[in-house]
């Protein structure tokens, strides 16, 4: 690595375009909405700039503490947490099966895990509409089972069942959670796999040799030792889940707002950019805090001698 002062010209040529772009078209917009978050807006949704200093306030942040908004924030956190737990329950066996699979199977299996996440996020999300809607695959399947049962019952002579009522599976919070699990599952499987892959299998052999059963070995040896990796993967999934905009927008109903949809609404229909900006920054601060926890966990897991 060289000192920049020795090659000032090449350093400038290499570094300046990127530095310019990141400041002009990323940092500056963020700083702008950071300032918005301390301002007030008029009824047209325009931020009031004059007089600047005396108008600054924390009103937008205190609005986030109103009950209705706290409710939405709580719903996002809760949905994100439920989605993360479901991802863990589904993803852990998958990561384990890949980590303990024969070497020639590992790469094809990993490829199968990441392949869906190279397809467009919007398409992946709306694909669930066809599955969950009233005339969707799940309801058709349930109706078929229902008809079979109904047929059997009427054959034995018991009175006919009422006609099948399709379940309302779409445009509600469970649909949003299904979408969040679907979109984020690969993000959890990959770090779990990385953790289990570098795990020293002789610890498991030792535990099994000393007479512990498979379950005891799993919960007393594997999980505690792999915990930093598990938590780090779960934190990543949680971060991605609470900040999602598209999933609640496409699969959620009018009552399944999450922070992302609430933020967008403030800048658009609700005409309250300061409040939207304040919410954006609260979401970003949360993201950074969680990323910091994740980074310190990663540093800690390096300390464990696998």
């Amino acid at each position: 690595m060289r000192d920049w002062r020795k090659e000032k010209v090449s350093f400038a040529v290499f570094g300046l375009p990127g530095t310019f772009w990141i400041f002009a078209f990323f940092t500056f917009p963020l700083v702008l909405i950071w300032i918005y978050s301390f301002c007030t807006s008029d009824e047209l949704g325009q931020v009031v700039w004059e007089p600047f200093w005396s108008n600054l306030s924390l009103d937008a942040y205190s609005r986030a503490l109103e009950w209705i908004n706290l409710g939405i924030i709580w719903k996002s956190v809760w949905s994100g947490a439920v989605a993360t737990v479901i991802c863990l329950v589904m993803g852990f066996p998958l990561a384990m099966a890949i980590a303990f699979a024969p070497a020639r199977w590992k790469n094809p299996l990993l490829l199968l895990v990441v392949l869906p996440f190279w397809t467009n996020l919007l398409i992946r999300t709306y694909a669930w509409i066809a599955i969950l809607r009233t005339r969707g695959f799940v309801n058709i399947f349930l109706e078929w089972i229902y008809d079979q049962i109904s047929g059997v019952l009427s054959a034995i002579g018991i009175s006919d069942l009422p006609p099948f009522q399709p379940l309302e599976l779409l445009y509600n919070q469970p649909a949003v959670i299904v979408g969040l699990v679907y979109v984020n599952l690969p993000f959890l499987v990959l770090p779990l796999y990385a953790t289990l892959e570098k795990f020293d299998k002789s610890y498991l052999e030792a535990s099994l040799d000393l007479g512990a059963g498979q379950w005891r070995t799993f919960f007393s040896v594997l999980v505690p030792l792999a915990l930093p990796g598990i938590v780090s993967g779960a934190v990543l999934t949680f971060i991605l889940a609470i900040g999602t905009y598209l999933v609640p927008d496409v699969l959620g109903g009018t009552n399944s707002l999450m922070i992302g949809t609430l933020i967008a609404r403030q800048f658009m229909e609700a005409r309250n950019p300061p409040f939207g900006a304040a919410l954006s920054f609260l979401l970003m601060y949360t993201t950074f805090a969680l990323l910091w926890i994740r980074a310190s966990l990663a540093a800690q897991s390096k300390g464990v001698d696998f």
Partner: protein
Amino acid sequence: MATDVAIAAPVPVRRVARRPRPTPLEYGRKRWLQGVVALNFIFLYFPIVSLIAFSFNDSKRNVTWQGFTLKYYDQAFHNSGLQEAFLRSIGIALTSTVLSTVIGSLLGLAIYRYRFPLKGAFEGLIYLPIVIPEICMAMAMRSYFGQFGIPLGFLTITISHIAFSFPFVAVVVRSRMSGFDESLEEASRDLGASPAQTFFNVTLPYMTPGIIAGALLAFTLSLDDYVITAFTSGPGSTTFPVKIYSMVRQSVTPEVNAASTVLIVLTLTVTVVAMWIQSRSGNKSIAS
């Protein structure tokens, strides 16, 4: 049930003879675990596969299979709105790719090569567009263009796409350069090449696989983006994903499935090529 009973008696005996029982650590051969893995893959693939399959289904209502047809592809192809949005998406993706590749590659090289004050903080800043929630960036960009009266359209979409794409290119190029042997550059200088000759004949050829992989990544990121594009585009500048979204809002028809399938195939092809180039250049790091 019937099959279970039939298997129960004779088969296990033969299996033991042919293949040893799984050892305690061969979790991949445990039946229940194989079942869980299969369920996971069904969960991951059923939505996409059914979506693609039903784009070939000869029925307006997307529920039961009525026979193979390509008419919805024909319909999507002759939908002038879709066509226009598709061409615009390709135009934006190409512009964004060229600029993000140049900016990102140079920056990746600068970060790899130089020590400078506040380098850690700067690298953190470069990662920001990758880690912050998309909706926050979308709103920031929209407010920024609105504040300065820049009309939303091709220009604003492209600027935003470059802003979130070039950091990925910088990361990929930088990780490619971490395997570079600097004595090659010294040798080139010792043998009388100028700094520019050294750059174009020694450094750049080594960087090339990273640059190509980064460019392909930038292309798919731009082509696939919905959230940031939706909020930085104006009425006359819908891109392909934005158009698909507005069609989905009306109803999910086989025509939308056909358009989506085209996009899936396009991005998958580009990504697979990028993966192949990266693995061939012996650099296993996939930006994720």
